[in-house]
């Protein structure tokens, strides 16, 4: 289908084109909800079954990093919303600026995630052959880079976990289930962030040509919808993975 300006041949008007594209994006987001839904269901059932092991696992995540990332992501949703607003009000110069800010914040999030994942490898809590949830508790504090106080908390936590689960083998098995879910859920979320970053990059290049204004801004709006969706997924992931059963010192 040939294209006249921004209007593709299969549509009659720009309004029809926008309505169609937006409906398509909303339906796509519905499929995304079902996609993540399978994971959330698996999480819910297993958390219900093994609350202690999941608690032990949750307490091994870094709350400061998780919290910082939540703030970063909410900020990126704000800048994304601002870029949509800039396009809708024809402030053509502002659109790429806000998009770049969104991309930077998204990249910061992914960077922090890399740091967190690295930590999990160091602490031997990545599912697989070397998984050992008691690794940091059994070794001196310096091996995992923990403070003395954190190390004592961890030892106490693991000891309680072993008691409640009825042995180290059971705790390790069920904690591995928790970390399978942790990596599955955050990994899939991160993958969506990477896709979003690619889309943002394309938007930035296009918006610098001044393509998006009050008359035509469908891509900005729809990629914005996607970005907000990915953000909302994190808003659920953060409390589910980091906050439940968190013991504050």
């Amino acid at each position, binding site marked *: *289908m040939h294209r006249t300006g921004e209007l593709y*041949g*299969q*549509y*009659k008007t720009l309004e*029809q084109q926008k*309505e*169609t594209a937006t*409906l*398509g994006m909303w*339906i*796509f987001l*519905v*499929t*995304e909800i*079902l*996609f*993540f*839904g*399978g*994971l959330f*269901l*698996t999480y819910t*059932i*297993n958390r219900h*079954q*093994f609350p202690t*092991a999941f608690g032990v696992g949750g307490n091994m995540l870094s709350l400061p990093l998780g919290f910082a990332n939540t703030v970063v992501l909410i900020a990126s949703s704000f800048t994304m919303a601002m870029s949509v607003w800039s396009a809708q009000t024809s402030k053509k110069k502002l659109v790429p600026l806000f998009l770049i800010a969104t991309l930077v914040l998204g990249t910061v999030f992914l960077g922090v995630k890399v740091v967190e994942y690295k930590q999990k490898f160091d602490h031997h809590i990545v*599912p*697989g*052959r070397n998984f050992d949830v008691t690794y940091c508790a059994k070794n001196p504090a310096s091996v995992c880079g923990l403070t003395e106080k954190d190390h004592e908390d961890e030892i106490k936590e693991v000891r309680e976990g072993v008691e409640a689960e009825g042995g180290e083998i*059971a705790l390790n*098995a*069920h904690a*591995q*289930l928790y970390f*399978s*879910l942790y*990596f*599955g859920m955050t990994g899939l979320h991160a993958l969506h962030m990477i896709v979003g970053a690619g889309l943002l990059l394309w938007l930035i290049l296009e918006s610098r040509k001044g393509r998006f204004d009050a008359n035509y801004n469908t891509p900005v709006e729809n990629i914005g919808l996607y970005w907000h969706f990915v953000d909302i997924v994190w808003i659920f992931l953060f409390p589910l993975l980091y906050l439940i059963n968190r013991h504050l010192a």
Partner: protein
Amino acid sequence: MSATPNSNGGEHKLPSEHYLNATYGIRSWLLTTDHKRIALLYLASVTFFFFVGGIFATLIRIHLLTPAGYLVTPETYNKLFTMHGVAMIFFFLIPSIPAVLGNFLIPIMVGAKDLAFPKINLLSWYIYLVGGSFVLYSFATGGLDTGWTFYTPLSSIYSNSAVTPAVIGIFINGFSSILTGLNFLVTVHTMRAPGMTWFRLPLFVWAHYATSLIMILGTPVIAITLLLAGLERMFHFGFFNPAYGGDPILFQHLFWFYSHPAVYIMILPAMGVISEIIPTFVRKPIFGYSFIAASSIGIAVIGFIVWAHHMFLTGEATYAAIAFSFLSYLVAIPSAVKVFNWTSTLYKGSISWDTPMLYALGFIGLFTIGGLTGLFLACLGLDIHLHDTYFVIAHFHYIMVGGAVMGYVGGLHFWWPKITGRLYPEFLARAAAIILFVGFNLTFFPQFILGGLGMPRRYHNYPPEFQVLNVMSTAGASILAIGYLLPMIYLTWSMRYGKIAGPNPWPATGLEWKTASPPLTENFHETPVVDWEPYDFVNRPDLGLTGAKPRVPGKLSPAHGDD
């Protein structure tokens, strides 16, 4: 070319310009965004997978000729029925009618120039190819033996076959299905021509709307489920592994949450095809239009809340089983609504026995048998006896082959003149339809009896007393094979040598018959305006019908007044 059918039965001419001769060359096909060309790309690829799956089916039937097993080792037999299921379900049945006929027809039926997202349509074909390549790679490197259901922990831990590439392939292929469903839904919502109200939509479109709902709501769940099973196999993640406290039953729940509705992805579009064929060859508006439309949506909705009837014997609470049994019975209501409305349409109609009609009538009978035997299996007590026997095999082949494939082949014949601009040889086509019907029943009816007698499915050998029925089934399968090869041959032949069809050879009432055969790339010269009700033969002078005179049976050109 004008949209008026030829009313004096004379020779038709192909339009000078249409979607097939608009551009030439391999690039014009591989990079096309025309929904009609993409439909033909799908036609070629699903036919390929149909034959891949068909070869496995042939080997299975030959193997079962003798009680001890005739052809292959038990391990190979496990792989044969697994690969048969994977190829047929994920790469033939699910895309067949939606991606071929739906793709070709939905934009024309709603009066649009193309689907809402033509590039995404092409993308979904490429995704299908990538997914299909992974699965073929799995087949070529030894195949897999988990059954098409991929139950964990067999698929995730114990199986020593090429499960991983197959899981990746099916995961990827799911997105093709999601994107097709998304495209259809949006097209029906936003691309309809002026006057094409919701209740003027052809029932084929309603059926695809319901199918698309299942595609977008169900497919993501199988995608995540297979992804988790794949992660478990590849990286020792523990989602469904009892050693880590994971739950294999959870896998089955998630799997069937998609895979039961997937049965309706296969059968609903076929029901849509039948709803188009019947009024055309009965020359009468379809009986209970709105009930048939609503029953499609009803089947899609109820289809989502019956999944656990696959698991009556694999560990679920008795009360849950009772609830799922009851809900499964409920699906019979909208299904029966359709069957009764089709038969009511036949009443006092002017029935002609053209090939598509033979398929439609065959469909009604076979689907009824398949549907009613489904009720046997939904019954908790009876299911204990019939579970995992050949009764189940016979039941779902009556739905999927007797229903979905009959609908697909019937629909191909019905719209073949529109797709290619040419007619197929009528006598051969009728013969093939009858051969298919006979071959099908001979193949699968004995399996009902075998199942009732207790022959389990998926076994590579059986007690000698079952041999007669198994030989009957294999004999039927060879007739069935001829029935499938015949249309392959004469449809291909007719693409070049068939009689020119003209825009509306039956004649039928849908918008697709008001444009040339084959249609233009843009489908219509001008956006059509719809001012008639669906399936109305009386107030349509453009169809060239006069009075209520019955047609001369077997005559392809429209009937007319005085000759």
